[in-house]
């Protein structure tokens, strides 16, 4: 039935991701609902202006103060339409926030004025995100300086890259091709030049891309190095034995119990906080351990490496 609303295709960008169709259908619905309400309202207005134009200055007008039934109708019907649109929008949005497990993971770092993409094998590329067709891709994003926003119009996706936070975004493209990628959060002089490309390629081309001139170590390997060099190894084991602090084995994605009774899932932001501000929460059983802060001693890149290392300790 939604095919009758094929209106959006004429002005929306190409449908480049699996989300695009759903978003466009909803957008079409809102456009038609808007056009219909506009015609009712402004049509009524125009008819009344023509029909009831003033004949003389002594015109008598009807004295109508209100009409409960009509007023109920034009409150209740819009309410139902708005709530319908809200639920529809929420359902689609929920899909965008449900991250698939089998996805290709890419770390995205925004800076004034460009993007750096880092793949888990250590391969880096600037302002160009290369992804295989038909595979889900999860981006973990942060920023070096000010807030940027990663936006691919053809994919109907957008997410801010915020300094000091890790934000996530996912998509799957089933259509080969190049797509425009913009920064949509104002970030200064070259904001409008912060344009990149998303290249959706075949799996073979993607493998070739990943293999070409990558750095010698994967992100997890770099993380292992940081783990040793920065001294994490002194207090944290990777095999499940408890040293001064909790072990990293199986930590990723697990639910951590705190000494104050609260719990939290161990994810990117949790890891980052634990490294930079370890005294914010204590893991149950370790309330007396004072871990020093690593604020200023590890870079955002090294945090990414450590996160990848912890992820690999299944």
């Amino acid at each position: 039935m939604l095919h009758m609303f094929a209106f959006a295709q004429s002005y929306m960008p190409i449908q480049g991701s699996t989300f695009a169709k759903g978003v466009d259908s909803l957008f079409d619905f809102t456009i038609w609902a808007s056009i219909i309400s506009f015609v009712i309202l402004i049509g009524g207005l125009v008819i009344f202006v023509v029909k009831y134009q003033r004949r003389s200055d002594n015109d008598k007008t009807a004295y109508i103060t209100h009409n409960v039934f009509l007023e109920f109708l034009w409150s209740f019907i819009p309410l139902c339409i708005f709530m319908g649109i809200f639920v529809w929008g929420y359902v689609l949005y929920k899909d965008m926030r449900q991250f698939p497990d089998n996805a290709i993971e890419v770390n995205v770092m925004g800076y004034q004025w460009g993007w750096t993409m880092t793949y888990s094998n250590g391969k880096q590329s600037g302002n160009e995100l290369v992804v295989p067709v038909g595979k889900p891709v999860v981006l973990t994003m942060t920023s070096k300086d000010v807030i940027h926003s990663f936006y691919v119009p053809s994919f109907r996706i957008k997410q801010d890259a915020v300094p000091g936070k890790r934000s996530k975004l996912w998509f799957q493209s089933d259509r080969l091709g190049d797509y425009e990628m913009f920064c949509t959060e104002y970030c200064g002089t070259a904001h409008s030049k912060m344009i990149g490309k998303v290249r959706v390629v075949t799996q073979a081309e993607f493998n070739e891309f990943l293999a070409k001139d990558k750095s010698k170590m994967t992100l997890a390997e770099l993380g292992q190095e940081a783990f040793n060099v920065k001294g994490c190894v002194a207090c944290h084991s990777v095999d499940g034995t408890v040293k001064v602090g909790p072990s990293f084995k199986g930590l990723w994605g697990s639910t951590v119990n705190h000494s104050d009774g609260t719990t939290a899932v161990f994810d990117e932001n949790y890891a980052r906080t634990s490294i930079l501000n370890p005294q914010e929460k204590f893991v149950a059983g370790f309330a007396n351990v004072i871990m020093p802060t690593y604020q200023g001693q590890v870079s955002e890149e090294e945090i990414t490496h450590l996160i990848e290392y912890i992820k690999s300790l299944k």
Partner: protein
Amino acid sequence: MGHAHVEGSNYLNHEKGLWSWLTTLDHKRIGILYFISVMFFFLIGGLFALLIRLELMEPGQQYISADFYNQVMTLHGSIMVFMVIIPGIPAFLGNFFLPIMIGAKDVAFPKLNLLSWYCLICGAGIAVSALFAGGIDTGWTFYTPYSIKTSTAVIVFVLGAFVMGFSSILTGLNFIATTHKLRAPGMTMNRMPLFVWALYSTAIIQVLATPVLAITLLLLVAERALGIGFFDASLGGDPVLFQHFFWFYSHPAVYIMILPALGVISELIAAFSRKTIFGYTAIAYSSVAIAAVSFFVWGHHMFVSGQSELAGAIFSGITMLVGVPTAIKLFNWVATMYKGSIRLDSPMLYAIGFMFLFTIGGVTGVMLATMAIDVHLHDTYFVVAHFHYVMVGGTLMAIMGGIYYWFPKMFGYMYSETLARLSWVFIFMGFNITFFPQFILGTQGMPRRYHDYIPEYAWLNKVSTFGSWFIFAGFVIGLISIILAFRKKEKAPMNPWGAKTLEWTIQSPPIHDNFEKIPTVNGGPYEYR
């Protein structure tokens, strides 16, 4: 005070000289002071707008560099928001007419009223002095951490906005007190004109929300000057916290900008349809409802900022609710016109233009409140088009309509109806030519605050720039019509429109005390029978 009324005396010639104006406690004169200042700021903000459109006429750099563009874009936004649209209707038309419409001699606190004007002027002066200290390039939203890292004069400008905030608070305070305490005998709350209801609802927001902006801006100053780290991630702060604080004020502020306009339109529709307003109670209370709900929707500016999905869903849902009272108003106005006696004088043309544009602004607002759609449209030109349809298509159209409606009362002269209608034609057409293409640019993905764009967006941008010249022409014609009215001095009758609210029962222009004798009210405001 009971001045004996001298024939030909009015508030304009009651006292003479510049000093009498700068120290006046008369709400009407303070309204005029606001009128002059807001017109001046509007001229400056408008010239910046023309410059923006000129630069965006073609892809690539045309006339100004990216850094300069960013400053122009920031100044256009903040001048229009803080110095034109927020004070526009309440402090100018509201100041002049709220006391008269409820049968009072003045506002409750005349000295605070004058102070509020000085706050606006001082704040504007401080803000403008930032231009000589390096300018400002943060956008009117001052988002951290950009506003902390930029080398421009953020502190000076933000302090200017801080001082201007007090102007808004004082006006709000005055209106609340005046509405509650100074109504004439018989003027119950439910007999107040709808413009007064709208100003009253606005005043509540002004008093409750503006202090939050003041605090936020001070935190920003502390952050920049002292490096405290509320919003700086490298010091353990949270940049997104600023956005919460900022929008907690600035979303209600959107209703500070539009509610008074809705009030003006209610007056115009009733007067030019010669008919009692349909659903008085619904319109009056829908203003209050919008004011109340406006405090719980700020998160819809932040669907992609990293806010939790649950928070996003709650904000999206509540935002949809705002659509209901807004729809009620629109339907009630159309219903008012049913079986009326309608005349398309220029104020009514502006009212009809308002409904046309505001409806488009409203329905696109619903689209933006829808989470999945907003992910695509957020921070694109769709948003730019949407809020211009509401702020310019809505509020500015209402200001123009209001000026033409009340001009004969304020100054005692009639203006050229032909010129007034011509200004409407240019502004209305020009507005649509300028901003409708921006909806399409937005759906195609063009981000806002862009100094340059990819060639695909070129022709729509060009159309938009052409449109901006029509708007400019329209406002110039409007200005000419007003200047000519002062030169021709064609005397206005007491009630040129045959309207029923109290301001039309007194002489044009009003005497210093508004009423020879405080009236006793024994009916509603729109008794057209």
